[in-house]
């Protein structure tokens, strides 16, 4: 086992920014808007760094796919304790159409190339909320997956994962190498420290170098704002409530 963990980090629009739809409804305004690391990716990085501190693994490699600015996100991961970074360069139209399928192909190729023992991702990105990349990557690699992880522990060459599922918590034991996706309660990410920010070891790679075809199979037709919330109606009795719900077709 190489003792190497790959952590995927995505550069997304900052959670605190008010999102605006482009006037031509083709997407969301991103120019000049503050971006930062996807919060679930931060949790993923923290978990990887924690595993390294507990000496379960030897090296944490942060990976991001995107244009030049993706390096900012990798640098944040380095500042949190990752050892080196890999920037997969995807720009322009290719970046606009880059989705979970393409990213999973890239991660799968990198995981093989880097001989990774573990691939940790955030459970989903807060811009597209796809929740697909981790699962797809595991399928492409034919590796076991521990998704929505709220607790991870390494036991020999197996991993015990407590997953947050609709019914509660599910505990599974999977073999390595494996893919994990981080859920909210896995940990609390640390701050980057000033000395760590001065580290800079980011390698650059193109999807073609990895033999990955990133053409998209999807076309976005239109993006709209959610409908305005309408005022509610106050009802007097429970019977009225049931009648109104039936009327609106809800029950």
């Amino acid at each position: 086992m190489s003792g190497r963990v790959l952590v995927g980090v995505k550069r997304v629009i900052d959670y605190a920014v008010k999102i605006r739809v482009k006037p031509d409804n083709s997407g969301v305004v991103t120019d000049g808007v503050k971006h930062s690391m996807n919060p679930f990716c931060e949790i993923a990085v923290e978990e990887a760094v924690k595993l390294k501190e507990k000496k379960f693994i030897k090296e944490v490699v942060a990976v991001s796919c995107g244009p030049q600015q993706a390096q900012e996100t990798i640098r944040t991961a380095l500042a949190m304790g990752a050892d080196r970074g890999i920037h997969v360069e995807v720009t322009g139209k290719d970046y606009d159409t880059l989705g979970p399928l393409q990213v999973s192909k890239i991660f799968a190729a990198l995981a093989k190339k880097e001989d990774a023992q573990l691939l940790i991702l955030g459970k989903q990105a807060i811009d597209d909320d796809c929740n697909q990349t981790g699962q797809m990557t595991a399928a492409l690699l034919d590796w076991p997956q521990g998704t929505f992880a709220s607790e991870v522990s390494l036991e020999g060459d197996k991993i015990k994962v407590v997953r947050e599922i609709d019914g509660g918590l599910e505990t599974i034991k999977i073999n390595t190498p494996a893919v994990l996706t981080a859920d909210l309660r896995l940990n609390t990410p640390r701050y980057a420290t000033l000395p760590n920010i001065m580290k800079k070891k980011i390698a650059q790679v193109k999807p073609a170098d990895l033999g990955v075809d990133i053409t998209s199979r999807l076309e976005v037709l239109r993006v709209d704002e959610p409908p305005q919330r309408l005022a509610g109606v106050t009802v007097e009795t429970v019977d009225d409530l049931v009648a109104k719900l039936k009327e609106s077709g809800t029950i």
Partner: protein
Amino acid sequence: MAAAGALGRIVRLGSSLCRKQRFIFTRSPPGRGIASCVDPAHGLTDEQKEFQEVAFNFAANEMAPNMAEWDQKEIFPVETMRKAAQLGFGGIYVQPDVGGTGLSRLDTSVIFEALSTGCVSTTAYISIHNMCAWMIDTFDLCSMEKFASYCLTEPGSGSDAASLLTTAQLKGDHYILNGSKAFISGGGDTDVYVVMCRTGAKGPKGISCLVIEKGTPGLNFGKKEKKVGWNSQPTRAVILEDCAVPVTNRLGAEGQGFNIAMKGLNGGRINIASCSLGAAHACVQLARDHLLVRKQFGETLSNNQYLQFQLAEMATKLVASRLLVREAATALQGNRPDAVSLCSMAKLFATDECFNICNQALQMHGGYGYLKDYAVQQFVRDIRVHQILEGTNEVMRMIISRNLLTES
């Protein structure tokens, strides 16, 4: 902070249910949002933007939620400051070989400006501590294991600092100190005191700099002062009665004290000006948010041309102040001949303008601005003193005019 949240924008997270425990959802942290003309990240290197990001995050998560409580209960937030020190904020421009972070004055200014948006008073104390750490380079100050205070002002000598009266008489291998210092930030709660005292004749050349540890017999403190702002730092008089300090605790040579003090103050002035910048930045964001929400006469205040123009003026003065402060930091870092004057100009301009900006922001909030539930009044109270300490703005004018009028 709840009231500020009521007026603040509702935080959007796409449709995910992401909720991080440590984020407070009552308001958008200052500095986030669409890049606008007042974004303090403009013109910075990628590395500086990273430092700034860490400082903004720390300010938003660890300081801003506690700012009002620290002010009202007069709490000296030791644990929070130690957390800051762990990230490297304890000795930002101190060399790494003695435990500092080894960054430039400009990096320092950027960091203090960002931290100040979380709590001006605490950031100002951290900057004073940094100044002392730079002067001493030892004593576990960078990790904030121990805290420091800078003691120059006396009841009888403020602006006329060179006329200080605290004496230090040499007796064998100790100096015996007698006298008192006034308005000492952190006094009584800090561990290390950098004291300017008279070892020689009258005037600046007779002043030396001694480092005294708390607990030394003869080092006593006055009562904790009740202040209008800066309440998260205790302020006390420092009283020296036959206090014996080893000669080895002297910084530099005898008679060099005033020089050391003034050198420390150049950086100190940039730091204080940076704290004012942070407060003004936060207030511009708060005012902007308020104008977009508050309605009178059938429309939001943001449609009122007078207020639009005022906001524009506030933004312009903020950016102008920031540029001057950053230029002064660069000049100091490069030891330029205009460094001292620039530091004075930056302190003078930034503290005055930023106070006006914060005051104006309070006015824009109307009656709500006067309530302690709203952060804007705390920013106003906290930065008012920046026009007075580290050299009054009048003394800044003295320094600048002297540079202009002295025949070279």
